[in-house]
């Protein structure tokens, strides 16, 4: 009976033939995750997913920090849709959660106000001579991995289980606010008990922690991070969340939003250096993974090709817990095998 709501709502997620849209933040900080997702889609699941070289931002970060008008973001999104239409796709898959949110919002607005859709068509044509169809299905990559989680499981080499104790790992799942808070029916499980990451974790052997600030924002807050003077907001909100989960001693955090993943990682470093606080017993911090990294590790992908070495919180204790094989000496090699000088060590955070 416990947590029966975590899978209440199921949304429609397309079966195959996806048009992939990269994320500003995910490609900047977690490019290995985007690569891994495409690899899972083609190599593990045999799906058709197209990565267009002409794609670009949705301008969502600019929009939510109020430097982009509604008409502009609508038309920029329309160009992305026109690339999709041109390449013969109908299912749009944005890598970013804020993109997912704004695409949902704008297509919903067009649905209720066809005049605004018409206006967008005119603007796009005027600027680029392009035309577009509204996607039949918009799903986030995490929705697709959720949908095929049992298929992926068949290829997995590891489980979310502590190899020494045999106990499921205790995992905090963090859902980006723009995934389902504005439109609960567009997220698997809705807004209060989203099932999208929980479903993956439970299928792959882990257990989920329910804690007081589970639904709280990571603290990004757009302009509240973009401008240095405001970053106290961002840091304080992450800190509030991390403090709330710390007593449960999570083995790691997994997030579906690239911004949340990055902030929950970097703010742990900042608080450690600023206040001397870490949220685990040993001073390492709590590792924060993208869902692609979580899936990729279980599939046996090389952690250093997933990009785990460019997280500030180090992942080795977690890899050891699961029993994932990795080569310590390869960690700071470049793509051509050259050994690089490792990053500087922080003063307080143990790396």
């Amino acid at each position, binding site marked *: 009976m416990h947590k029966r709501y975590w899978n209440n709502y199921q949304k429609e997620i397309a079966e195959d033939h996806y048009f992939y849209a990269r994320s500003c933040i995910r490609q900047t900080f977690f490019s290995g995750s985007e690569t891994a997702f495409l690899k899972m889609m083609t190599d593990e699941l045999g799906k058709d997913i197209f990565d267009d070289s002409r794609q670009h931002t949705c301008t969502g970060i600019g929009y939510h920090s109020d430097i982009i008008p509604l008409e502009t973001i609508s038309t920029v999104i329309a160009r992305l849709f026109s690339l999709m239409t041109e390449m013969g796709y109908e299912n749009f898959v944005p890598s970013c959660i804020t993109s997912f949110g704004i695409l949902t919002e704008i297509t919903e607005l067009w649905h209720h106000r066809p005049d605004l859709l018409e206006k967008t068509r005119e603007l796009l044509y005027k600027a680029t001579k392009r035309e577009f169809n509204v996607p039949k299905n918009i799903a986030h990559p995490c929705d697709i991995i959720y949908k095929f989680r049992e298929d992926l499981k068949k290829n997995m080499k590891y489980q979310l289980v502590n190899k020494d104790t045999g106990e499921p790992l205790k995992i905090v799942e963090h859902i980006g606010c723009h995934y389902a808070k504005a439109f609960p029916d567009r997220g698997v499980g809705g807004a209060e008990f989203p099932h999208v990451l929980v479903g993956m974790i439970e299928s792959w052997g882990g257990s989920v922690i329910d804690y007081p600030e589970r639904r709280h924002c990571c603290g990004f807050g757009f302009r509240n991070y973009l401008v*240095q*003077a*405001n*970053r*106290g*907001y961002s*840091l*304080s909100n992450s*800190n*509030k969340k991390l403090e709330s989960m710390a007593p449960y001693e999570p083995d790691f955090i997994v997030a579906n939003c690239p911004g949340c993943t990055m902030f929950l990682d970097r703010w742990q470093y*900042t*608080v450690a*250096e*600023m*206040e001397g606080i870490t949220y685990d017993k040993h001073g390492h911090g709590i590792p924060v993974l993208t869902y692609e990294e979580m899936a990729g590790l279980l599939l046996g992908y090389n952690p250093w090709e997933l990009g785990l070495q460019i997280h500030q919180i180090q992942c080795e204790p977690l890899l050891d817990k699961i029993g994932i094989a990795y080569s310590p000496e390869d960690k700071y090699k470049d793509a051509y095998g050259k050994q690089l000088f490792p990053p500087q060590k922080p*003063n307080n955070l143990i790396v």
Partner: protein
Amino acid sequence: MISFGFSLNTSRTIDIDADNFDKCHSLINHVPSYKRCIGCGGCAATCSAQQHSQFNILKCNLLFRRGEYDTLSNELDKCMLCGKCLLVCPRNVNTRAMIISMRNLLKTK
């Protein structure tokens, strides 16, 4: 030490769990009618001090009730004890005695 250019902000959340209610309980003993307040704001609307300062008697009352005493003593000094609030209170709370008692309680450790 690294200079980040920002720091952790203090929380504005009223934390009932902090259980900082000793003074509030004493106030109730001194001015039992304090318990009857329904937060209607009639007192604040008629307040003489509010005409020419930021003083808000309802907020002072509520902050005291929530155990948030920190900013109160300067605020309470703004009240002139004119007693107009007594006339309008629909629950007949002895607001004047309430202010005097709050001032005294805030002076005690």
